[in-house]
């Protein structure tokens, strides 16, 4: 049976992610877990994220999940969502500076207030970046299958990914500046937006993930 482990590190709403996965893959086993052994046994792993990055990394360590998570990042289809994207990079500006898991090269800065203006109207762009924005797919990927170019997904975040390796960028979004809204390498795919809250397109992405063989 296709087992999808959703990492639970005790930081908020994970029900939506599980329900959305169950919705698109009724035959799969969706397991919300904070047990490292479950990550090792699962066929695929989802790393959702909410809250602050410092708390997220600390909670991973307090549950002893880091080694199992790093192992999964090397070996099985892996989907990071929101903070689950940001935490993969070297360093986040959040909380006065927080080291990430450093699996992907890059930084996670705050949207710079001086640059946050709408080009058309001149009005201030609000932070958090909250709502439905477009994702430009910069290269083909199994997880983009049947999702049209420039489809809107639901975002909510104040920090953004500045990828250190262009080859790892799978999608970009404009909000005051152009940022990495999807990153991928090998068996890893990670998104800034919330597929579990992005209606049809989001469900399609989750379905693609559940069917993905983990090959780039």
């Amino acid at each position: 049976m296709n087992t999808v482990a959703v990492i639970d590190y005790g930081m908020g709403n994970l029900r939506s992610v599980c329900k959305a996965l169950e919705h698109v893959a009724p035959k799969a086993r969706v397991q919300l877990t904070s047990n490292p052994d479950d990550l090792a046994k699962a066929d695929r792993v989802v790393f959702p994220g909410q809250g602050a990055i410092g708390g997220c990394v600390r909670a991973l360590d307090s549950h002893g999940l880091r080694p199992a998570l790093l192992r999964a990042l090397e070996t099985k289809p892996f989907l990071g969502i929101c903070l689950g994207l940001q935490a993969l990079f070297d360093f986040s500006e959040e909380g006065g500076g927080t080291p990430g898991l450093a699996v992907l090269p890059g930084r996670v800065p705050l949207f710079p207030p001086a640059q946050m203006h709408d080009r058309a109207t001149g009005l201030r762009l609000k932070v958090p970046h909250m709502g439905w924005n477009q994702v430009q797919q910069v290269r083909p990927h199994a997880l983009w299958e049947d999702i049209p170019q420039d489809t809107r997904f639901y975002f909510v975040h104040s920090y953004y990914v500045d990828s250190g390796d262009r080859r790892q960028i799978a999608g970009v979004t404009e909000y005051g500046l152009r940022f990495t809204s999807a990153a991928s390498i090998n068996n890893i795919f990670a998104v800034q937006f919330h597929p579990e809250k992005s209606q049809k397109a989001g469900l399609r992405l989750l379905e693609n993930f559940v069917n993905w063989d983990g090959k780039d």
Partner: protein
Amino acid sequence: MGLAKRIIPCLDVDNGRVVKGVKFVDIRDAGDPVEIARRYDQQGADEITFLDITASSSNRATMVHVVEAMASEVFIPLTVGGGIRAVEDVRRMLNAGADKVAINTAAVANPDFVKAAADHFGAQCIVVAVDAKQTAPGKWEVFTHGGRRATGLDVLEWTQRMAEYGAGEILLTSMDRDGTRDGFDLPLTRAVCDAVTVPVIASGGVGTLDHLADGVLLGHADAVLAASIFHFGEFTVGQAKERMAGRGIEVRL
């Protein structure tokens, strides 16, 4: 091309049932919040807000079940407001499947609660709801208890302070316009939207589709919330989006 302006239908829920009647011709149970939420989702709503007007704590448990049911089948963001008074209330709603909670009276009674909730769960899930009444030209005061109790707080100062305390969004309701169908209080909306750095949802007074567009174009709102124009099948969310797009507003179609 960029971030779309959001349209958010709002439902008043009492003991697990929608009140103020929703009248769709083709709906099975017009009192079931999940069925109505599903309908708005199909019409293209960008988010849904449930306002829990329940007074008793036993009925609050019912609200948790409603949120759980909604999260199992409607995959767009859900905000829950009403009776959120402690960190534990926030946790309960988020665990049930809400994406954001709206805090109103409790923020006025104890502003540090907003700070504690934002520190704990992240600013992205904390909405501060503000009920505003005009007291003089260009001056608005914060009211609580459904507009019955004055607080002495200036709306502009209060909303800026709440953003500093960690509110990720402001839900701004004009008590002068609420229920009138005369349109948003545009000077109020614009003053708050221009003053704060976080997104603002305009609410109170929508009677026509152009009112929604005015909220964005003249009020500078990031999102617009309405109840009755959608509930009675008068307009669909899709029609609202078409009108907004026709007036040059970026929406998710």
